[in-house]
């Protein structure tokens, strides 16, 4: 715990210190309190789109990844109601795309799958949308499978803010949203994306994959085969 000079909030009753400018998510992660999330990655500007990290602050729901921590906030996160809603959102993400875990080479390393494990998802609950989405294998080293995109825009942010390339962007609207790439042909192979780009390291699902590496680690020996996403994401700091 911080000294009595530092500012604090409480999360599920636990006193959590924070520094000016930190969000509730920042403060929580620093204090080893896990709030489920998919579109958030502490290395990038918070986005606030997946809404999994929604918490209740003084009775009102807010996205913890974008909401600044303010002295005295009483935050509820690990509650039956919120976890139930997070589960529903996760199920929504599964049915709006085509997430076939058994045939996906990201299985076991996929954050969407891991969050579903964490929240105890036993079925998709909703009817599958089975959307028609394009797969782009034009790049020599990268496969873009839009069936697995959850619109977190981490690749968009990484390519823009770190790689300085603006390879990715979103087009369309609503359920017709689609990940587009920065080339007149619309093909990834015609962009200047490199497999070593930051944008290639941030996809929480199997939408962006490096080719020829899918099964270097066998299924059963992958991250979330042995660890919960909570342990991994809180442990990220040490890696």
């Amino acid at each position, binding site marked *: 715990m911080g000294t009595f000079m530092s500012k604090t909030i409480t999360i599920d009753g636990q006193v959590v210190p924070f520094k000016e400018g930190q969000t509730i998510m920042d403060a929580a992660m620093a204090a080893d309190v896990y709030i489920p999330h998919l579109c958030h990655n502490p290395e990038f500007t918070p986005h606030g789109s997946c809404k999994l990290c929604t918490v209740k602050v003084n009775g009102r729901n807010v996205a913890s990844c974008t909401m600044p921590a303010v002295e005295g906030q009483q935050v509820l996160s690990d509650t039956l109601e919120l976890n139930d809603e997070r589960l529903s959102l996760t199920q929504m993400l599964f049915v709006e795309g085509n997430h076939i875990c058994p045939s996906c080479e990201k299985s076991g390393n996929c954050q969407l799958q891991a969050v579903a494990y964490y929240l105890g998802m036993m079925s998709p609950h909703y*009817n599958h949308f089975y959307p028609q989405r394009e797969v782009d294998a034009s790049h020599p080293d990268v496969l873009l499978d839009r069936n697995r995109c959850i619109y977190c825009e981490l690749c968009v942010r990484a390519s823009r803010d770190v790689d300085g390339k603006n390879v990715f962007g979103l087009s369309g*609207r*609503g*359920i017709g949203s689609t990940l587009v790439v920065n080339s007149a042909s619309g093909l990834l192979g015609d962009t200047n994306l490199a497999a070593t780009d930051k944008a290639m390291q941030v996809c929480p699902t199997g939408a962006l994959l490096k080719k020829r590496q899918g099964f270097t680690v066998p299924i059963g020996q992958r991250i979330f085969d042995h660890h919960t996403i909570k342990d991994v994401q809180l442990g990220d700091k040490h890696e």
Partner: protein
Amino acid sequence: MQQPESSDLSRILAPVLARHGKDSAQLLQILRDVQDACHHIPAEAIDQIAAHLDVPRVTVEGVVGFYSFLSTQPVGQYRLLFSNNITDQMLGKDDLLKYLCNKLWVEQGRVSEDGLISVDNTSCTGMCDQGPAALINGWPLTNLDQNRLDLIAELIRSQKPVAEWPPMLFEVVDNICRTDVLLGEPFTPGAAIKQVLARGAKETLAEMDQSNLRGRGGAGFKTASKWSFCHAAIAEEEGSVICDIGGNPERFIVCNADEGEPGTFKDRVLLNSHADLVFEGMTVGARVVGASKGFLYLRGEYRYLLEKLEGVLKRRREAGLLGDNILGQAGFSFDIEIHLGAGAYICGEESALIESLEGKRGRPRNRPPFPVTHGYKGRPTVVDNVETFACSARIAEKGGEWFAAMGTAQSTGTKLLSISGDVARPGIYEYPFGVTLRQILDDCGAEDPYAVQVSGPSGVMVSWKEFDRKIAFEDLPTAGAFMVFKRSRDLFQAARNFAHFFAHESCGFCTPCRVGTQLQKKIMDKIGSGHGTICDMEELKRLGFILKSMSHCGLGSSAANPMLDALEKFPDVFERKLKALAFEPAFDLDGALETARRITGRDDEWAHL
């Protein structure tokens, strides 16, 4: 529709790009012009525009994809979009659309083989008092019937330019049925500004405060507070109090004329016949907060008002009511630029509107920070409704006390209602706040009223049992829509129409709204097609809870209102449609065999389940 040759394209693009300059905030305006000229945004145009504005190609493509009126694929040379509000449907729109499609041999949503025409639906075009309505290449058509569609089909077949079509087809009338202080009293342009200059900016803010004017867009935030936050934002930022109201540092006044809520059309009338009042209100706001630049964000559907509004702005500049040294006051500079939307309801949300003004996808921002401190281009910005600015002009002219004497204590002044649906006299009605629904229904000649959708799909469905409720922020707050349904109407169809509306208009940013509005739509369609069960009603309630509590902005959090209201107040309209009380799959087994039947040419008993 052939692809324009690249030299043709350059000839089209060059003047457009020259006119709009190199500020990327002009992107949407540029794309609108290109769409008008080419009937789509050619891939090569995207490259050239991106190069001109020095933005990534992917940014331009993202903006094209976001707005309904823009497209990367060619639409018909004549693009006819039927307004798909429930009021249009009640006036026979669905049959008219089919009629026209049959007549022109075109499939809804497709472009005809020769590229001449495409016919489709669009969200409410704000002509509910004179529907069924449509847009032809962006220009409004009203009072559609078979006769008019016969004429329109003939004009299209003979390839007559839309500009040469009979003006009668495009007639839009105000239909002002009841007036009060806003619409009923004469206004001399400049009268309010003169009062502000005589009284002082700070004192004008005090009058605004005293008037207790609350935002007319529906949320009801106190206008004086918004203005003073915006003014104070700079003071805070610079650690000193700003005394010289007027010049730098930069602040912005934005008028939200993205009147997209289905059933609302009062801003259309204010801008058509009382634009001076609106622009004057913006100028008053500019003086109070210290802004030198204002924007009118005009929804694309109201593009037909653009020239008229530009004319009013020009006249006001000539009269010294806009521009430098307004009414001779040294250092008081303010001017207004009109930006057009391109078919996106979400841009009525103030932070999405600002994104759109900046030429981006209309996606609501994360808040805090709020627009009053970090708005247009990150600067303090006031975004107010058209009617709010009109009221502000009146308050600046006549004082806060005068205004506060009208209406109720918490809801001062008057409210414009856009009345449509099952009434004898649809149109604009101005009432002091506090008026009962019963009174309004009497005045507009409602026939056997059973329900009223107050404030549009995002508002409240009020049942006949509640007609003594009042229009007021403390009872029924409203942005102005007032759609009346008689007893014989199918309220389920109204709710279903609204579910489709929200699914179409969701920006797609957040999971609950992007997916939740689709799920709502699918369930409503399932029930509507006779496959619904009690479980589906429960699922709608559960979705409503998630949408309300988890969504990023007001669109998502209100997208379940029509379903939740109907379930609570009119459960029988659902129950009548239910096939069974137990589980019923959404998958239609017999329907799935249709392809097989077509292939084998069978339709006997054994070919059905």
